[in-house]
């Protein structure tokens, strides 16, 4: 993520927001994999939608993640 990343309203991200967004994207990538055991995949999906909520609440993104 670039250091000058911004939220939906164009404000610079704080360090916490940057970390949150990064975690969300990593979990989203993990959730899209097909080679993981169920105990990893489905818990990753659960974690990913929770972080989606936090990121959307803060206006860091607005997208519809493909979860299942």
């Amino acid at each position, binding site marked *: 993520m670039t250091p000058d990343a911004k939220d*939906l*309203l164009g404000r610079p991200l704080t360090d916490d927001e940057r970390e949150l967004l990064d975690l969300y994207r990593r979990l989203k990538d993990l959730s899209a994999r097909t080679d993981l055991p169920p105990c990893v995949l489905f818990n990753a*999906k*659960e974690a990913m*939608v*929770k972080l*989606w*909520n936090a990121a*959307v*609440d*803060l*206006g860091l993104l*607005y*997208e*519809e*993640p493909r*979860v*299942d």
Partner: protein
Amino acid sequence: MSRNTWSRYWNPKHETLPKEELRRLQLLKLQRLVARAWQESPYHRRIYERAGVYPDQIRSLDDLRRLPFMTREEWMACQAEHPLFGDMTTRPREEAIRYHLTSGTSGRQPLRVLDGRKDWSWIAEMWCYGFWGFGIRPHDTVYFAFSYGSFIGFWGAHYACEKMGCLVLPSGNMTTENRVRQIVEMGATAFCATPTYALRLGQTAQAMGIDLRRDARVQRVIVSGEPAGSIPATKKMIEEMWGAKCGDTAGMTEIGTIMIFECDEQPGGTHILEDHFIEEVLDPESGEPVPYGTKGERVVTSFGRGFIPLVRYRTRDMVEKVPHTECRCGRTGDLFRGGILGRFDDMKLVRGTNVYPRAVEAIVREHPEIEEFQIVLTREAGVRDEITVRVEVKEGAQAQWPRIEARLGKDLAAAHEGLRFNIALAARGELPRFELKAKRLQDLRDKS
């Protein structure tokens, strides 16, 4: 983090966002929502093409009005033509994790809805805004008097409280008496139900010799599911019965969650979650927007539900929007004064006068001797409409009946252009009690 340092807002960043920025955020979300609806929902593409509107024409919030309304009738027709869920869903059924139905209190075919994993997480999130805003915190023990069926009810609130770290007590199909005992035994600090059921449980406790103010530890009663949650007299009855603050919320199955909640300032209205919804208030006849302080119909656009894009859905709910500055809490989400005021399709015409069940309830609840009531409409001699309010009074109040009868009849007439209401005394226990949405109006005019 110590309990004393919690933010009073669930989402401090957006709940206090300046209005201009809130509008920019709404526009950005609206543009993406409409583009997704166009791409993924055959229903939406069809109605947009019919209206001659395309996603790239949504350049300002005023452009929202280019978009056609969604209606309950069209939704039902869509599900009839494309069973079971219509062609407005954006994902295959295999990706859903939950199925719910509307409550069916309107007597029509219930709507069927599907939601995915992300949708349910968002549904709970909206309840978090509301519960946190009314003062629920992780140390609370929250009691749900709710049957956990296919009616969506408090499902989302249950998950919200788990997310917030509360101890959740789901009472499922327990009897009212057992619920009373469990609330006392477990020291529940918050109680969630319909307003009607909050009163009923209180009455049952009294009959069991339990004083909830003394014997229970409930500090907050959160109600939903009926307009009565914002009727001052009903709220006062609940607060006095429970010795607790009563806060209103409102949602609907069509959006899956709540869109408004009362904050702990109890400002006489409910805040709109404006970073997740657009709530228009329109003249129900012309479809034109009405200004602040004018009653109109709610039309909702939801940014959260993924399976079913909800854009400009006509709810038939009657509301009155007022600026956020009417509340001191600092939130910038506007308010619906008095919560949901009723439904336009609940209105009954009786000898030329409009009668709304919520307005009748507001007056009945001003009479603390009344325990339960029912409104019955009949047609006499095939022509003359009559309205009767059947009333059950509390134990020991029977001797006051002549005074209650006279006063209630006078108050109801005064609020309805002089319309004469018949007031009838019902035997104790004769009138129906309700757990979910109360159905206190019986219109028998076609059968009279």
